[in-house]
């Protein structure tokens, strides 16, 4: 009796968690303008719309440009800082770490209002650099967490061994630390890209009509006039996220195999 109830409850929650995502995806292939079941006829017209309509095509391009820019910026800054945080001699290390994670905690609307006011004064409001910077601020915590975790896994004696064998600090970093930290850096970059791809609120405040991202475009079309194009875009986002996640996992796996072969 108790067992059955347990199983039933588990199934119920799993359904609640997964059903919404699974249930809407077929609607991307409907030929109707309404997002309702049953689907009378299947077609790819909404994907055609997604890739040909100016507003959608521009927004996909913008998401890629801004996502890549924000990923590059946050990964470089975050990786450097994570390397710095590793040193035990660093004063206020905990305070610094907390501050680096804060962008994840501050409500997006609050940060958005502040950024909008400041960016207007700095002259970067409604520009690509402005949006890239704003996204990078939100991506930094993910890079820090991911890179720090992979740095924590490095055995310090490996680096000591390298320098005792005569490698210069730069060479130790380049040949030992960096390759070992690379999986963490890559997954940090993937998280950063995914964060930028999904960001709406800050974009509402700092981007102009020319920097509309895919997520921003989806937000306004759900608000104003929802069509199956939104679901087609959602499917695209899911596939994109899955590919990125798969890529990160693959790179990590290869890295581990190389590491295993290098240290028999």
């Amino acid at each position, binding site marked *: 009796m108790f067992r059955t109830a347990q199983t039933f409850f588990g199934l119920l929650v799993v359904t609640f968690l997964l059903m919404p995502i699974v249930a809407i995806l077929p609607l991307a292939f409907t030929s109707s303008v309404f997002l309702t079941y049953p689907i009378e006829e299947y077609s790819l017209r909404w994907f055609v719309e997604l890739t040909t309509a100016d507003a959608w095509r521009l927004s996909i391009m913008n998401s890629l440009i801004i996502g890549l820019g924000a990923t590059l910026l946050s990964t470089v800054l975050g990786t450097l800082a994570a390397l710095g945080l590793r*040193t035990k001699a660093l004063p206020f290390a905990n305070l610094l770490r907390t501050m680096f994670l804060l962008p994840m905690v501050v409500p997006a609307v609050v940060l958005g209002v502040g*950024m909008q006011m400041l960016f207007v004064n700095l002259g970067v409001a409604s520009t690509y650099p402005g949006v890239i910077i704003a996204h990078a*601020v939100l991506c930094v915590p993910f890079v820090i967490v991911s890179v720090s975790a992979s740095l924590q896994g490095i055995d310090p004696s490996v680096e000591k061994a390298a320098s005792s064998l005569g490698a210069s600090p730069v060479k130790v970093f380049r040949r030992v630390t960096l390759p070992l930290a690379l999986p963490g850096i890559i997954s940090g970059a993937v998280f950063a890209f995914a964060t930028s791809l999904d960001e709406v*609120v800050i974009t509402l405040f700092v981007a102009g009509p020319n920097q509309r991202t895919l997520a921003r475009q989806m937000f306004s079309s759900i608000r104003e006039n929802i069509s199956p194009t939104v679901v087609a875009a959602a499917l695209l986002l899911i596939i994109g996220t899955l590919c990125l996640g798969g890529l990160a996992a693959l790179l990590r796996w290869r890295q581990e195999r190389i590491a295993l072969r290098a240290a028999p």
Partner: protein
Amino acid sequence: MSRASARERMGALLLIVPLLAFLAVFFLWPLWTMVRASVVDNTVSRVLPRTAAAIVSWDGQGLPPAQVHKALIEDLRQAEDQQALGETVRRLNSAVSGFRTLLTRTTNAVRDETNSGAIDLGDLDRRWKEPRFWLALREAVPPYTDRNLLAAVDMKRDAGGAIVSEDPGASANRLIMFRTFLVAAIVTLACATIGLPYAMLAAAVTGWKRTVLLLAVLVPLWTSLLVRTTAWFVLLQNEGLINGALQVLGITDGPLPLIFNRVGVVIAMTHVLLPFMVLPIYSVLLSVPRNLMQAAASMGAGPLRAFWRVLLPLSLPGLMSGSLLVYMVAIGYYITPALVGGANDQMISSVIAFYALGTANWGLAGALGVILLLVTMILYFIYGRLSKSPQLLGA
């Protein structure tokens, strides 16, 4: 300290400085700008600097001395920035209606007259003989104001400077704040009710069952928030799957109103935030030795008693951090209420966005933002104390 460790420390600092500078400029400075905007009010003092300096000496009794009149005439004569002057007029007119015509008329008259000594404001317009216009001016000139912060909680200063409540019906900020805390509490409760038994189940089973239960939590966490909100939008609408299923099963005759109301907001937010409840409880339960429940049973406790006296107390730390996390994220939510909620479900974030994007009322948007920021920071501080590592899940 040895030289090597001093060098190491320098190196670490050099690595950290770029990010520190980046976040100082593009994270802390924006927040500071917002805090400043909520308390700084230099609209009037920027356009009327002499008046602002002179009117301070007036005690507010009767009419201000002649030097204040002179300063105002000089300021109006020299005010060149038409846009700033317009903002000043608007600001003063919102305090005392009639200021718009009064200032426009006075400015024109002052500019036409070459000999500024010959102007008498009282003769020019009789309204300058009324103290209330001068009092409004005196109140508008200080560069710092608590007007916005008070307005954010539906309060204001009366003519005498005492803090009083805003007239009922004039503003709904208190109601919206109360609603924000209420919706966040309902969502937290819903997440706890579902998340606690779910996390216990996930910790109790092994093998593929555990994998499935955990994947079901992780997949939504890594799916775009917008995709999940779109999904609920499609499911909850009147012609959506849920209403369709209910009608096919004969449970309801017509569609239930599930979208653009509180029900929809709570369902969608619970779905989005449930992983933040399940994962902390699960990780706490993982560290509980498996044989503890068996020990309780061997000592004669029934399953219910063992649960109540052993498992529940042990999962409390996870439940506490999960609840704090969910509540903290929920009070700042914008996208889901904006898309799935109706006009009566908008939370504090929506109001901030409305003032900032819609009416460009930076002062009030900033003041509401300060309140939201403060509450979030206090919750984060408690969260950091409770769970020793101040890291958020999902990262």
